[in-house]
């Protein structure tokens, strides 16, 4: 299987009050297509910075990042936005749904920035909602009318609507109760089965065990990179209505 992501000697530092604060200090790894990876580490270890760098929201200070074999550091802002739109789906801890905006308009945000004709939007939104186990009829509702678990699944529907190869999830279960969290993990595992590469940042060991590989960061370097011996699977009938 080819590597969808390859990172070589990645460094990232921030300038705070004229002082350089290093966050990532030389990261090397490769992710084959279709893998489910959990990135773990204590606060300040650089896991979110790594995730956002992989998501092309931030440029590394030095090093190389190949996405689908292409070096990304040479892409301009416009091209980066296009790659984010077409190849990457983001899921956030706090869902980040637009308030006072219907589920339909929330889910299709990525379509708005793509070349997909508007006539196809509804069909795609319904398909995305159904693939995360939500009733398509919800599309007229507002985010505030849904439970936290439902909101996160709407956010996942939004992340996958453009059928991205990679899904990046930043603590997706962090704001959810265990039942809703399990539901979200089930959805992510299902998406992984369909071929999406998933990179998940979490500090919960139980959550990370749903992945098939765990990268552990400490002080901006990889502390360990292991395959999960006994991967956990969420049983469908247990949580999904």
């Amino acid at each position, binding site marked *: 299987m080819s590597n969808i992501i390859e990172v070589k000697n990645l460094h990232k530092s921030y300038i705070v009050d004229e002082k350089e604060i290093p966050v990532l200090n030389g990261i090397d790894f490769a992710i084959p297509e279709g893998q489910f990876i959990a990135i773990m580490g204590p606060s300040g270890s650089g896991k979110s910075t790594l995730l956002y760098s992989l998501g092309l*929201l931030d440029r590394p200070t030095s090093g190389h990042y190949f996405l689908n074999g292409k070096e990304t550091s040479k892409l301009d802002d*416009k091209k980066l936005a296009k790659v984010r*739109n077409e190849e990457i789906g983001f899921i*956030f801890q706090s869902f980040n749904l637009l308030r006072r*905006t219907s589920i339909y308009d929330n889910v299709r945000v990525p379509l708005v*920035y*793509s070349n997909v004709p508007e006539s196809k939007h509804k069909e795609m939104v319904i398909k995305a909602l159904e693939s995360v186990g939500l009733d398509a009829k919800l599309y007229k509702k507002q985010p505030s009318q849904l439970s936290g678990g439902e909101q996160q699944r709407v956010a996942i529907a939004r992340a996958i609507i*453009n059928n991205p190869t990679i899904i990046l999830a930043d603590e997706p279960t962090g704001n959810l109760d265990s039942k809703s969290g399990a539901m979200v993990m089930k959805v992510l595992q299902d998406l992984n089965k369909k071929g999406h590469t998933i990179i998940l940042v979490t500090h919960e060991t139980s959550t990370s065990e749903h992945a098939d590989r765990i990268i552990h960061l400490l002080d901006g370097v990889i502390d360990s990179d292991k395959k999960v011996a006994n991967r956990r699977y969420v049983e469908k009938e247990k949580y999904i209505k």
Partner: protein
Amino acid sequence: MKITNTIRISLAGLKANKLRSALTILGIVIGITSIILVVSIGNGAQGLILGEIQSMGSRTLTVEPGKPSGGLSDSMMTFFQQSLKENDLESLKKKANVPHLQSIIPIVFTSDNINFGNEVLSATILGSSEKIFDFYKIIPAEGSLFTEDDVKGKTDNCVIGSKIKEKLFGNIDPVGQKIRVKNKTLRIVGVLPEKGGGFSFNYNSAIMAPYTTIKDYVLSQKYYNEFIVEVDQDKYIDQTVQDIQITLRNNHNITDPEKDDFNVQTQKDLMKTVGTVTTVMTLFLALVAAISLLVGGVGIMNVMFISVTERTKEIGLRKALGATNSDILNQFLFEAIYLTLAGGLLGILFGSLFSYVASIGLSQALSSNWAFSFPISAALMGIGVSAFIGVVFGIYPAYSASKKNPIEALRYE
């Protein structure tokens, strides 16, 4: 991103904050409303004044004391100039001097109290020849008018305006009654018809008497305040102006036209002057009104900054999901432009409505035909200016939104 999507997203952004959007555009609405109102009323006033000037006939000239100049202080000074004398009137009447002069109406006037019994009323007292009635096309409402014989004989016959009749006499028939002006007693022979308001001489609050009587017995002055001259044919207007100037310069021993102590105005001059004055006044008032546009623009900028800050997370999210910097810039810029355009359109609507109501009110108040004209140029300018304000005051907040770092924006609480 397609422009239609930008338009939709921006509109959705505004709809989410309806009250704030409405309050924000208030400044623009008021600004455009005032500009439309001012320009519309200014145009109406100009039309009315110019219409009245035209109705006096293009062959009319006026000769006034004082040097020819456009300045306000100069025109105020003409009241105190005593340069138009009896011999000037006689010289101008001579065919040898001004061959195309058809008629000349000498005018003296003042403003003073008139007394009837114990009643006192302030009025305009105008002395002229009987020809003034033809000039203003006056037919008496009651009684008769004074005649050429009255002028020659310096009689005490006078006519009064409708307002004088109403205020001084009430239900009493004024014809035949005597009134006192200064130390002179005048006898009322007729009442003038009610004149629709306007900007030429409004005789509703005036008494008119032979100029000979007023000049010699009431004012005891040796000069005239104005001559109204009628030229026999249009083509001789310019020549007549020159003839009058030469005659008066001869009489006044003036060799340098720069030192003229009188000025001759044609209707064309008058219309040009009035046109310039009303246009300048209108522009000035519109400019004052435009200040509120500036204030409105600053208000919009302020609200756009608040909106950008409030929606920092949304900006981060949109960027994460594929929005480019220019997508974000356009989204917020369009919001600002919608706000100002909506304000502009509402302003045009209200401005037109108010000026229409004002034209009806002014028509009734002045009993004249005040024409409502929709100021298309001001409306188009209003739309242009409001969109421009949207761009000017929206671009900086929109730019700051587009430049937000997506990660920081996503973490913004």
